[in-house]
C-alpha cells in the first residue's frame, strides 16, 4: 500500500499528471480571458519532453555539480512535502505537526531558486536570484502567518486534524476570509506567477535565475514549479476549504478536485488582472499591508477561540 501511495496516488504519478493538467488549464484560462484560444491539452507534456531532449549547455564559470543538484533538490523537497498533503483525505503519511514540515519543505524551492542564480554566474541570473530572495522575505511572512490561522483555530498542527475540525464546524475560508486571501497572494508570490513574477520578469532580467539553464535541468525546474503549484493549491484547499468535505453524501474526490480548480481559477485570473509589481512595491505591500493584516487575522482567530 505504501509504495502505491508514494509512487502512484497521491504520490509522484498523480502529481505529475496534475502538474501537466493544471499548467494546461492555467494557460487555457488566461488565453480565454485575453481573447485567444490557448494551447492544446498535450502542450505542457510536449514542452516537457522537448526540453528533455534538448542539449544541456553549461556556461563557463558555472558550478557544474551545483547546477545539476539544485533542480533535483527543489523537485525532491516539493515531492516530500506532497507526501503529507492529503488529496481527497488520502495522504502517504501523516504525523502530529506535519504542517510545519510541509511549510518548511515548500520554502526550499525558493532557496534553491536563489542559489540557481548564484551558481550560474550570468548577470541576469544573479540579479534574478537577488530578487527572488527579496521576494521571499516579502511573501513568506504573511503566508506563514495566514496558514497559522486554521492551525491555531483547530488547535492542531496536523493537516488531517485541521480538515476534521472544519468538517464538524465550517470552512476556514468562511471563518478567516482575510487569511484565505492573504494565503492566495502568498502562494502567487511563492510560485512566482504573474503579477509577482518579479525574479523572472522577461523584459527586465530575461529569464531570471534560470536564464543559463537548458535541457533536462530546465525541464526539472519547470516540473518542480508546476508540482509546487499543485501542492500549494492542495494545501490551501485542505486548510481553508475543508478538504474533500462539502455536503454529506457527495463523493470525496470530485469535491476536492472542484475546490482545487476553483483555487487555480483564482490564481489564473489574478495573473490576467494585474501588471507586474516592482520589487520595492512588493516589499512595501508585504510589510505595510500583508503582514499586519495576517497578524490581525490571527488575533481574530485567537479571540474566536476565547
Amino acid at each position, binding site marked *: 500500500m505504501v509504495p502505491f501511495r508514494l509512487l502512484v496516488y497521491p504520490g509522484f504519478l498523480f502529481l505529475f499528471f496534475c502538474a501537466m493538467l493544471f499548467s494546461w488549464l492555467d494557460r487555457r484560462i488566461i488565453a480565454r480571458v485575453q481573447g485567444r484560444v490557448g494551447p492544446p491539452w498535450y502542450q505542457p507534456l510536449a514542452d516537457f519532453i522537448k526540453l528533455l531532449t534538448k542539449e544541456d549547455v553549461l556556461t563557463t564559470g558555472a558550478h557544474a555539480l551545483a547546477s545539476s543538484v539544485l533542480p533535483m533538490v527543489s523537485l525532491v523537497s516539493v515531492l516530500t512535502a506532497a507526501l503529507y498533503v492529503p488529496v481527497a483525505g488520502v495522504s502517504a503519511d501523516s504525523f502530529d505537526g506535519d504542517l510545519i514540515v510541509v511549510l518548511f519543505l515548500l520554502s526550499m524551492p525558493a532557496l534553491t531558486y536563489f542559489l540557481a542564480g548564484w551558481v550560474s554566474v550570468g548577470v541576469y541570473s544573479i540579479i534574478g536570484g537577488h530578487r527572488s530572495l527579496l521576494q521571499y522575505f516579502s511573501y513568506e511572512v504573511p503566508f506563514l502567518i495566514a496558514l497559522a490561522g486554521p492551525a491555531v483555530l483547530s488547535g492542531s498542527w496536523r493537516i488531517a486534524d485541521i480538515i476534521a475540525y472544519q468538517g464538524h464546524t465550517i470552512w476556514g475560508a468562511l471563518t478567516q476570509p482575510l487569511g484565505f486571501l492573504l494565503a492566495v497572494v502568498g502562494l502567487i508570490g511563492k510560485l512566482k506567477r504573474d503579477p509577482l513574477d518579479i525574479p523572472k520578469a522577461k523584459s527586465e532580467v530575461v529569464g531570471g535565475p534560470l536564464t543559463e539553464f537548458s535541457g533536462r535541468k530546465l525541464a526539472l525546474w519547470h516540473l518542480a514549479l508546476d508540482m509546487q503549484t499543485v501542492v500549494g493549491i492542495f494545501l490551501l484547499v485542505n486548510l481553508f476549504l475543508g478538504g474533500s468535505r462539502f455536503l454529506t453524501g457527495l463523493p470525496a474526490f470530485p469535491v476536492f478536485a472542484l475546490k482545487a480548480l476553483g483555487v487555480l481559477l483564482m490564481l489564473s485570473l489574478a495573473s*490576467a488582472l494585474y501588471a507586474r509589481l516592482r520589487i520595492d512595491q512588493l516589499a512595501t505591500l508585504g510589510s505595510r499591508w500583508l503582514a499586519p493584516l495576517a497578524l490581525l487575522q490571527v488575533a481574530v482567530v485567537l479571540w474566536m477561540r476565547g
Partner: protein
Amino acid sequence: MTKTTVPIGPQHPLLKEPMSFQLGLEGERVAESAMRIGYVHRGIERLCQERSYVQNIYLLERVCGICSHVHATTYSRAVEALMGVEVPPRGVYLRALMCEFERIHSHLLWLGVIARNIGFDTIFNYAWRDREIVLDIMEDLSGGRVSHAANTLGGSRFDLTDEHRDKILEQLQIMDAQIQLLLGAVEHERTLRERTRGIGKLTLEQIHRYCVVGPVARASGLDIDLRRDRHEAPYDRLEFAVPVHTDGDVWARTLVRVQEAVESVSLCRQILNSLPEGPVTTRVPRRVPAGEAISRSEAPRGEVIYYVRSDGSDKPARVKVRTPTLTALVTLSEQLADVQMADVSVVLSGVDLCIACADR
C-alpha cells in the same frame, strides 16, 4: 557598493529591434548608462540618391515599419512641391485618412508593447486585438497591411466607393468602443498606473533643450502638433483636440497616446464624412526641376522632416530624413539616471523607440 554592468541588447527580450545599452547597476539602481545604435543602419539616404523619384517612395516607406505611410507622404509632398504640382483635394483627404489609421495602429501597438513590458499581458492582447481592426481596414483600402504603397507622386493610389465607406464607418464604431475600454484601463487600472507613474520624468525645460517632439513632448506640457500648427489641408477644416499633459512621466505619455488614438478615430470619421468629390491623382512630369524643398508632417511619434534636393536629373541629389525617435534617444540617458532596473523597460518603451527609424 560594487557595480555590475548589465547589457540590454543588442538582443534582449525587451527590445524589439537591435540597439544596445550598457547599464552600470548599483544593486537595483541604474548608476550610469551608455547607448549605441546603428545596428540596423541601412544607408537609406545614400540609396535614395541611386534610385529614381518613383522608386524612392517604396524605399522610404521602409524606413519605418509602423509609420510607413507618413514617410512616403512627406517625401511625396516634398517632391510635388519641387515639381510645382498640386494634389487634388480628394487625394489629400485620402492620404490624411491613411495617416490617421496609421496613428491609431501605431499607438495601440505601443500600448501593447508597454503593457507587455510591465507584465500586463491582458492589455497587450486587447490592444493588439483591436489594432487588428485598423490593419484590416488598411489592408482592404490599399492592399497591404504594413507597407501600404498607398502613395504615388501626385496623389493617392487608392479610392473609396460609398459602400466601402459605410463599411469602414461601421468598423470604426466597434473600434470606438474598444478604445474607450483601453482608455479606461489606462486611466483607472491601479497596477498599470503604479508601474508607470513618476518614471522617466522629463520637464518642459528638458524638452526644449533636447528639441523633443511628438507625444513625449506633449506629455511634458509642450503643446506642439504640426497637424494643427501648420494649418495644412485637410486638418484646417477638421475638428480635433491635441491632448497635452504636464506630468512628463510615462503614465502621461500613455494617456496622451491613447487619447490621441481616440481623436484619430474621430478624425477618420470626419474625413470619411466630408470626403470631397473628384479625382485622387494628378499627372506629374517625369523630370523634376532643379531646386530644393523641405516637407514636414506629424508622424505618430512626432515631427518627420524630409529635405529633398534635385539637380534636374531623374534621381534626387540628396534626400535627408529626420525621424522623431532620434530626438527622444538623446533624453534617454537623463531618463535612465537613478531609475531602478525594473523601470528600465518602462523608460525604454515609454519613449516609443523605433530604432530602425533612428538608424535609417
